[in-house]
C-alpha cells in the first residue's frame, strides 16, 4: 500500500501538470509562402498579404487568402490597375504576432511590396502596424476589431499609413442593440469567454444597452475550454431574458450553442452575439444556429452589382460548401478594390499619394457603399442585422451607414 500512495502522489503531480498543458493550445503548421514563380515584372503592383492560414486563426486566414487570390485574378482579367498587373504575395503568419511582424518586414524589404493587407487577430495586426508605419507602406487590415488606426505616439491623432477596413465594436453595436431591444425586449443577458476580447466586446455592448434604457440581467464569463455550460444555461433559463448576447469565439461558441439548443434556450429567447456566428465557424455551428440574429457588414445575399459579380466569381472559382457569409473573404476582396480605386485616382503607386487618394475615397463594394474616413482612417460602412435561416445569412434590416467616433478606445501599445 505504501508503494501505491507514492504512485498516487506522482499521479497528482502529473494531473496538475496536465492542467497546465491543457490550456496551452499548440499551433502547428508550416510556412506556406505561395506564388513566387519567376521574377515579378518591374511593372507589377505588388500587394503583400498576411494570411494566418495555420494556427488558431486558420479558418479566417484561409478566407483571407481566397479573397485576395480572387481579387488578383479578377482585376488582372480586366486589364489590371492603370495597365499594370497586380501580384499578391501571400505569407502565412501562423496566427503569431512575432511571425506576423517578421513576415511584414520580409514583404517590405525583400519582396518590395507596395501595400500590405490581411492579418487575423488583433495581436497580429498590432504587431504589423509599427513595421508598416515606420517603413511608410500603406497597410489596410482586413478584419473587424477595436480601433487601431491612431498614431504610435499620440493616440488622439491618426497614423499616416494604417487603415481599418472592418467595423469596430462601436460601429457594429450602436444601432444594432437598440434595434434588437425595440424588436424583442429590453432585458439582455451577456455571456463571454474569459479573456480580453470578449470582456472588451461585452463591456461596450452592456454600456450601449444601459444607455438605451435596457437592463443587463446577467453578465458572466467562462474559460474558453469549458466543456459543460449547463449551470450557466440554467441560470439564463431561470432569468428568462428577452435577448441573449454571446461573445464566445471559436470552439467555445460551438459547445455552448449545442448545449443551449438542447435546453430549449432558442425557443425561449432571441439569441445573438458577436464573433460567435461568423461563417468561419459555420461548419460546426451553422446547422444548429437556425434562427440566431447576427450583426455584420456583409451577406452574400446583398443585392448590388458589385456583390453579384463577387459571389458569381467566388462560386465559380471555389465551389464553397457553406454560404460566403461575414467576413474575411469579401472583406479582403473589398480592400483590394479600395487599393485599385485609390491607385487609379492617384495615378501612381507612391505611398503618400495613394494615402491621400484613400482618404475620403467613396466606393461601392460587395458589402455596399463605403467611405474611407479621412479623419480616423476607418472605413465608414453599412451594418446589417441578419438572421441565420434556410442555410444562409438573411438580411433583416440595413442599419445604415456607421462611423467610428474619432479614436475612441484606440490603442496601438503592445
Amino acid at each position, binding site marked *: 500500500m505504501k508503494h501505491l500512495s507514492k504512485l498516487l502522489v506522482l499521479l497528482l503531480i*502529473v494531473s496538475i501538470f496536465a492542467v497546465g498543458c491543457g490550456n496551452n493550445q499548440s499551433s502547428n503548421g508550416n510556412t506556406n509562402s505561395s506564388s513566387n514563380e519567376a521574377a515579378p515584372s518591374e511593372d507589377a503592383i505588388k500587394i503583400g498579404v498576411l494570411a494566418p492560414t495555420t494556427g488558431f486563426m486558420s479558418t479566417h486566414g484561409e478566407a483571407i487568402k481566397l479573397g485576395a487570390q480572387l481579387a488578383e485574378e479578377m482585376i488582372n482579367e480586366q486589364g489590371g490597375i492603370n495597365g499594370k498587373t497586380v501580384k499578391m504575395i501571400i505569407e502565412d503568419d501562423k496566427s503569431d504576432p512575432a511571425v506576423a511582424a517578421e513576415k511584414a518586414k520580409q514583404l517590405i524589404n525583400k519582396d518590395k511590396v507596395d501595400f500590405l493587407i490581411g492579418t487575423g487577430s488583433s495581436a497580429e495586426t498590432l504587431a504589423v502596424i509599427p513595421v508598416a508605419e515606420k517603413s511608410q507602406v500603406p497597410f489596410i487590415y482586413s478584419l473587424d476589431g477595436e480601433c487601431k488606426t491612431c498614431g504610435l505616439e499620440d493616440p488622439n491623432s491618426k497614423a499616416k499609413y494604417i487603415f481599418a477596413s472592418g467595423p469596430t465594436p462601436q460601429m457594429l453595436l450602436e444601432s444594432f442593440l437598440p434595434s434588437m431591444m425595440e424588436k424583442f425586449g429590453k432585458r439582455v443577458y451577456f455571456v463571454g469567454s474569459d479573456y480580453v476580447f470578449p470582456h472588451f466586446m461585452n463591456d461596450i455592448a452592456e454600456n450601449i444597452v444601459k444607455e438605451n434604457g435596457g437592463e443587463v440581467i446577467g453578465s458572466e464569463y467562462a474559460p474558453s475550454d469549458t466543456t459543460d455550460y*449547463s449551470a450557466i444555461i440554467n441560470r439564463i433559463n431561470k432569468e428568462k431574458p428577452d435577448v441573449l448576447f454571446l461573445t464566445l469565439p471559436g470552439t467555445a461558441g460551438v459547445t455552448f450553442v449545442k*448545449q443551449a*439548443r438542447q435546453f430549449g434556450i432558442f425557443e425561449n429567447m432571441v439569441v445573438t452575439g458577436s464573433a460567435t456566428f461568423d461563417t468561419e465557424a459555420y461548419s460546426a455551428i451553422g446547422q444548429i444556429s437556425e434562427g440566431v440574429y447576427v450583426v455584420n457588414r456583409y451577406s452574400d445575399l446583398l443585392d448590388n452589382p458589385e456583390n453579384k459579380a463577387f459571389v458569381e466569381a467566388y462560386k465559380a472559382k471555389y465551389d464553397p460548401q457553406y454560404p460566403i457569409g461575414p467576413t474575411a473573404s469579401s472583406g479582403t476582396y473589398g480592400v483590394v478594390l479600395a487599393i485599385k480605386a485609390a491607385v487609379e485616382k492617384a495615378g501612381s503607386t507612391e505611398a503618400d499619394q495613394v494615402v491621400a487618394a484613400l482618404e475620403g475615397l467613396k466606393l461601392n463594394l460587395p458589402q455596399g457603399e463605403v467611405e474611407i474616413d479621412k479623419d480616423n482612417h476607418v472605413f465608414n460602412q453599412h451594418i446589417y442585422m441578419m438572421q441565420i435561416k434556410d442555410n444562409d445569412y438573411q438580411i433583416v434590416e440595413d442599419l445604415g451607414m456607421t462611423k467610428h467616433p474619432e479614436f475612441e478606445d484606440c490603442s496601438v501599445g503592445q
Partner: protein
Amino acid sequence: MDAIWIANLLNILTSIAVLAVVAVGLYIIFGLMQVINMAHGDMVMLGAYSTLVFTQAGFNFWTSAVLATLIVGIIGGLLERGVVQFLYKSGNLSTMLATWGVGIALQQTVKLIFGPQGQFVDAPVLKMVNIFGVSYPSYRLILLVLCVLVLTGVFIILKKTRAGLLVRATMDNRVMAEAMGINTKQVYLYGFIGGSALAGFAGALISPITNISPLMGLDYVTKSFLVVISGGVESMMSTVGGSVIIAGLQNFLNIYIDSTNSWMIVLAIVIIVIWIRPQGVFTKK
C-alpha cells in the same frame, strides 16, 4: 423543491455519471497494471471522432456509438500490445511517458485529418421531457441512464463473473495469480481493451453535447486522475466515489460561482484530501 434545483441536480448527476465511466476505465488500467495511461483522455476524444465519422457515413447515432466503443477498445488493445507491454518491467515513469507520447501523436493525427476546428454531431433526440415538474433535455436523461447501466454492468462483471475474478486476482497480487495459473498477460490485454472501450463509450455519448476537437481529451484525463487520486483505487466503488467528489463538487460550486473559481476550489480540496488521506477517501485502510 424548486424547479431550478431539480434541473441543477440532474446536471450534477449527469456530469458525475459521465466522469465515472471515464474514470472507471482508468481505474481498471491503473489498478490492474499500475500503468498511468496518459492517453486515456485521447480515447475519449477518439470515441467522439469515431461517432462523428460513422454518423456522417449515414449510420444512426446509437449504432455509431456502439461501433465507436468497439473501435476504441481495439485501439486500446493495440496500444497495450504495441507499446505498453514492453514497458511493464521498466516502471511507471516509462509507461507514463510512452502513453503520453502516444496521446500527443493521436491528437496531432486527428488534427491533421479533421483540422483544429470544432466538429459537430447531431443529438439523436432533441425534445425536452417533463420530469418532476421541470423540462429537461431528454438526451441528457438518456445519457445519465446509460452511464448508470454501464457502471452497474461493469460492477457485476468485476464482482460476479469468472472474468472479473481473474481481473481482481491479478490486481490484488500478480505473482500469486500467475502461480495459480492465471495468464496475467492476457488479463492485462483485456483490461486495457475494456478500460479504453469505457473511455470510447463516454466519448461517443458526450459527442452530441460538447465540442469535438483534437484536444478535448485533456480535460477528461486530468479529471479522471484527480478522481482516482481522491477516491483511491481500492475498488470500483472508490472510483465512483471520487467522481462524486470531483464532478459533483465542481458542478455544485458552478451554480454559485464561475467555473474558473470553482475549479480552483476543487483542486484545493483535492490537495487537502490527499494530505489527510493519501490512500484515497473511499478506502478501508
